[in-house]
């Protein structure tokens, strides 16, 4: 009996604990929208709501550098296949080309590509790294020619329209002569780039297609849609090879690792489905987050998966070892989704401001500057925060009156040219409670 008991204790000790099932890594101060691995597998990059991209070492998951340039949230980041460029796109409608050889420098200056009139949500390089395509919610696909040296000659651009509504994702054909694009109109369209001519739709799903991947060599198209469908079809004749999704939960991320034989889907409620591409059988089906999975990345060891979503952190999951039940308890409460009893002023801050601002002196990275000691401070003067030129020249001193005015009239009126999104608080009591809370919570 004693031997049996000891064996049971030993068994419990050998079981992987739920705490070690995954590892979380924090560098950002806002939700993380995209993950991308460098072609050599040594680095990966994260693109975040906090207006920055972070370069990480893939081996030990350490932050190497932070890239500031965008004046709004970043949605996408991609490395060129030749490893020369990192491209980022954001809510400011800009694409920034960063030389990968300079990513560790603090003063790295990107090449800025302008032309879109809406947020940029996805980017793709051609295999030869000579073209870049952008998907935008302005309803257009941007095409940027990189064959001439972008550092010394202006990048030629053109825009293709045809989707009815926002464009969500793009991918070049293997030879770079054609382009696939997915949009809210539920279609994956196929374009001839020599004439920018729409040829046909390889998928007509009806519901918005958020993500897709095409492997022309293997004749497959995989896509995820807003009605919750995770699907793989034969590209040539649309024969269904795999179809999952009866929950009607939008599918938001897709990762196709041809070399590892793994296809992954992530949805809006944190579900991750990993599929073996040799026979389309499910490898793992688990919940990796309390909220959306916006991006995923198979790490170079092919043994772990990095996922990103609404939290500041990214999470690494060992694919083949973790206990399948996962999140038996909710993850940590997000600062902008508080679940405890707090005053109305604190709630207003938490729900309306905290996604962009912190109250701490150490000023964790956020989209906006720390509010610690904000009362009495001149606008645009907090050291270390990359203010817009307009704020740097501002003579406003932050007081109860000026903060009241900021939210009564809006940042576009009080601080024109600011990077701050236009927000107004019409509820006078909420605004009064918020300012009162800030007065006590931001004191030195």
């Amino acid at each position, binding site marked *: 009996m004693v031997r049996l008991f000891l064996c049971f204790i030993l068994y419990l000790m050998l079981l992987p604990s739920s705490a070690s099932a995954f590892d979380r890594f924090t560098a950002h101060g806002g*939700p993380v929208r995209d993950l991308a691995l460098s072609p050599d597998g040594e680095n990966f990059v994260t693109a975040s*709501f906090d207006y920055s991209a972070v370069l990480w070492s893939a081996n030990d998951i350490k932050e190497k550098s932070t890239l500031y340039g965008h004046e*709004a*949230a970043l*949605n996408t980041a991609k490395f060129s296949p030749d490893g020369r460029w990192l491209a980022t796109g954001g*809510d400011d*409608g800009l694409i920034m080309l960063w030389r990968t050889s300079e990513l560790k420098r603090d003063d790295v200056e990107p090449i800025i590509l302008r032309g879109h*009139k*809406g*947020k940029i*949500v996805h980017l793709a390089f051609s295999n030869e790294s000579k073209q870049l395509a952008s998907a935008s*919610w*302005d*309803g257009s696909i941007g095409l940027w020619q990189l064959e001439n040296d972008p550092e010394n000659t202006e990048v030629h651009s053109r825009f293709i329209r045809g989707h009815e*509504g*926002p464009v969500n994702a793009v991918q070049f054909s293997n030879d770079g002569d054609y382009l696939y694009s997915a949009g*809210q109109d*539920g279609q994956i369209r196929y374009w001839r780039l020599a004439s920018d001519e729409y040829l046909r739709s390889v998928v*007509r*799903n*009806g*519901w*918005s297609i*958020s993500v897709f991947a095409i492997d022309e060599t293997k004749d497959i198209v995989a896509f995820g849609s*807003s*009605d*919750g469908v995770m699907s793989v079809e034969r590209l040539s004749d649309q024969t269904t090879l795999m179809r999952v999704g009866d929950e*009607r*939960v*939008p599918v*938001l991320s897709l990762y196709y690792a041809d070399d590892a034989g793994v296809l992954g889907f992530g949805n*809006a409620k944190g579900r991750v489905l990993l599929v073996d591409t040799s026979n389309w059988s499910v490898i793992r089906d688990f919940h990796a987050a309390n*909220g*959306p999975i*916006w991006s995923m990345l198979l790490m170079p060891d092919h043994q772990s998966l990095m996922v990103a979503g*609404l939290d500041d952190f990214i999470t690494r999951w060992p694919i083949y070892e973790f206990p399948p039940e996962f999140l038996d308890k909710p993850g940590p409460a997000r600062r*902008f989704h508080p679940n405890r009893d707090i005053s109305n002023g604190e709630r207003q801050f938490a*729900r*309306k401001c905290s*996604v962009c601002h912190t109250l701490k002196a150490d000023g964790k990275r956020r989209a906006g500057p720390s509010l610690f000691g904000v009362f009495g401070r001149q606008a645009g003067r907090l050291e270390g925060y990359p203010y817009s030129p307009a704020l740097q020249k501002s003579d406003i001193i932050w007081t109860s009156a000026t903060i009241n005015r900021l939210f009564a009239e*809006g940042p*576009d009126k009080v601080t024109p040219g600011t990077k701050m*999104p*236009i*927000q*107004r*608080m*019409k509820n006078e009591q909420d605004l009064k409670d918020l300012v009162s809370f800030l007065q006590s919570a931001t004191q030195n």
Partner: protein
Amino acid sequence: MARMKFLCDAERCIECNACVTACKNEHEVPWGVNRRRVVTIQDGKPGERSISVACMHCSDAPCMAVCPVDCFYQTDQGVVLHSKDLCIGCGYCFYACPFGAPQFPQAGNYGSRGKMDKCTFCAGGPEDDMSSGEFQKYGRNRLAEGKLPICAEMCSTKALLAGDGDQVANIFRERIVARGFGSGAWGWGTAYSIKS
């Protein structure tokens, strides 16, 4: 208080797009924004269906759950509305919505970052009822005028129903019994499976 709901009977929708046009006209919705649209599934194949889709004003609205700035609220009639003064145009609600309801005008239409726009169930927004400010930002407040959404009123085949959820459900139930086949109420379970 009635709980307002939409129902689109996919067996009746003929993809005429009258609902889409009526909505744009009633609310003077800017170019590039479609608060309502008609989605066709199984296009050109057996089983093709068309469904008129807009915000369904879900009981447990996923847009509200992901919004980082708390711009959504639900009226006592169950209508999910949002404040364009608070919205920062992040687009997270677009990704969360199974109906693709949130729309994002191009830069300049509602400020530099593009405030989200969506169906209001013809119930306006947080501004004063039937004020010019409310109309400019959110469109006409037909509910305050004692009317139901224009899209359903304009539907010639009565595929699109809008109103008190119990009455809508009763009408649809009678239809099913009468025709003897197919539920066709696409999205009803997704939107209203959790009782409010």
